[in-house]
């Protein structure tokens, strides 16, 4: 890879976790619209609370379910997100996530009548599928959700099952072949 391409790759990675003031504002606005959260005080715990973790796990597993390979939960994605929350991010990051998760939960409470994590998997897939489609179709609908989804995907495809079972990974390729049959290497390279 040239340095120019690495540069692009890095920008992509950076954007996964980027939090802008504008993004945080948008999440707050969404939260107000979604329900009564605007008047509610959100936790300032340095850890994601059990209810928040349940939502993260359910959303992650709905986006990347278990098939013949691990899903997001089996691959340890929720633990990575908890670690980003407790060890990596600053207060701005934590309040962005907390507000964003609360907004999501309020939305699903309203549309599904119960916390997202308590729904059946088909209800989860149905409701999140609609929400997801809207998030990518409408600019600014929920930037937090898109950022969370990118983080979930990164955590999954960097995990051992995600990289080595779902995708293909060679720690030491040892050789370069610029033009090989897809039939020989049918899977996306993990990295």
């Amino acid at each position, binding site marked *: 890879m040239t340095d120019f*391409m690495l540069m692009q790759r890095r920008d992509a990675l950076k954007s996964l976790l980027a939090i802008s003031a504008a993004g945080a504002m948008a999440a707050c606005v969404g939260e107000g619209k979604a329900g009564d959260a605007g008047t509610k005080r959100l936790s300032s715990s340095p850890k994601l609370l059990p209810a928040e973790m349940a939502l993260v796990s359910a959303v992650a597993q709905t986006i990347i*379910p278990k098939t013949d390979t691990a899903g997001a939960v089996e691959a340890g994605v929720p633990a*990575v997100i908890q670690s980003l929350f407790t060890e990596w991010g600053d207060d701005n990051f934590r309040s962005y996530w907390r507000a964003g998760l609360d907004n999501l939960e309020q939305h699903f409470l309203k549309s599904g009548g119960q916390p997202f994590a308590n729904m059946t998997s088909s209800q989860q897939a149905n409701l999140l599928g609609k929400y997801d489609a809207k*998030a990518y179709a409408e600019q600014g609908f929920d930037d937090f959700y898109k950022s969370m989804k990118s983080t979930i*995907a990164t955590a999954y495809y960097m*995990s051992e099952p995600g990289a080595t079972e*779902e995708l293909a990974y060679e720690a030491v390729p040892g050789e*370069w072949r610029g033009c*090989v049959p897809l039939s020989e290497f049918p899977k*996306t390279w993990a990295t």
Partner: protein
Amino acid sequence: MADFDAIVVGSGMSGGWVAKELCERGLKVCVIERGKSTIPTEDYTDMMDPWDYPNLNKVHESEEKDHYAIQSSIYNWSADTKHWWVKDSEHPYETAEGTEYTWRRGYHVGGRSLMWARQSYRLSAIDILANKTDGHGVDWPIRYEDLAPWYDHVEEFAGISGQAEGLEILPDSKFLPVFEFTCGEELARDRIEAKFPTRRMIHGRCANLRRATPEQQALGRGSCQVRNKCHKGCSFGAYFSSVSATLPAAERTGNLTLMTDQIVAELEYNGDTNRVTGVRVINRNTKATKTVTANIVFLNASAIASALILQNSKSAENPNGLANSSGMVGRNLMDHVGGAWGSGRIPMTPELTEKTTYGRRPNGFYIPRFRNHTEEGDGYVRGFGYQGGVHRGGWSGDKSGVGKDFKASNQTPGDWYISMGAFGEILPDERNRVTPHPTKKDQWGLPLPLFDARMRQNEINLIKQASKDTVELLKAAGAVDIRSSEDYDVQPSRPGNAIHEMGTARMGRDPKTSVLNKYLQSHDIPNLFISDGSAMTSAACQNPSLTYMALSAKAANHAADFYEAGEI
């Protein structure tokens, strides 16, 4: 009697070469490095798998903001590479009002030879004649023919992968086998060259051992394992660095002393004999000072640090610092200009659908300069080249879809994408300079660097055309859904951003307008040599490290010749 025959200030790309050549000529050499030692088994992070990294290999957010505000903008910044870069909080610098400068560097044995992007291109006869031809800067005191044997010399030792093309604008190196194109690149090349018969898309030329030679293996270096982890340090020694190649070669002569953690504050100078007698160093940990003496001094501390050391070496008889009778030390600061880039999708063909790649090539394609060569430039002199690649898309979380379908969409390789960016030549301009700050000092009591450099009209006009040409080339390659710098107000990159700083002690024919002669020897002081980027008389548009290597080998051998003859 002096402590050493020669002192080499700096252990990076160029200092390693000087040390190797002088040691192999039998001189006792002391390399002085301001940073810490580099221990590959401890400092290289290339043996980790993606899942070994905490927090997705991200640097802690507050640490990045507080300590690496400038360095963290490097393209390969991550938790496992941050130790190669200085803490901005500990190593500040200043910029003149209304100017900006990005100075990225690392303080450790090997310097930026450990973090470089390894792209290696010769300058051409056209480049060496450029100043003379269009009147900017001063004429190089050497010609391509003077440099060619030194390119041969360093390439065979360092190991440069590439393919001979016989191009006048980009002379061939002594090549190791090439890293082949992807099928997407073969198609893009055919289409671009059909549309533009005088433009070429060639294989990137890089300092990775595609097949290690016996000479390289004897130094403990192995062939490239195609992991694309070079920026973490390579445990196989498969890309060229001081640590993998030149310093071990110097070490095995028994003539090398490597002094770490010693910051060179100034040169010691004897006005009666007009010689530098050594250097005064400050221990970066204890702040203790001492003097190290030698009969020859080489500055290889980088174009910024070498220029500052000279300017800080002031005395009543040399109020502007040493080797600076021309007043050119610190001036003509150059880099390469970026800001023209683009990418797009290459729609599938029956051939492309069925093909993919194996391995992670640490390289890409190169499009040599065509403006002001085979095609006219629009309102500027000199030119630019492009680096890029064509690959199948990988996984992405930044797209719609949930569930099995989303998973499946990532499991199969995606479309083919082309991306590329330009590097353009910056003219030598005396107004672009670095000087010691008049009042502000670092924790060792040394003046902070004060940068005063701008991109000027030639650079602006050049990068605007490079941006337009990017889209033209992408379209010629058949790309669609093009995103490029043309979507924005095209602006040249910030000075320093290409990490190719050079020109601050330029070579030239006239001692009144240049610092170094054709031997890279100070016009003023015969036993002082400078062969880092400072020496460059013009910048060309190619990545410069290969030229620093050739100039360093050339300078070291001239110095050894003069020393043996008793002339210095």
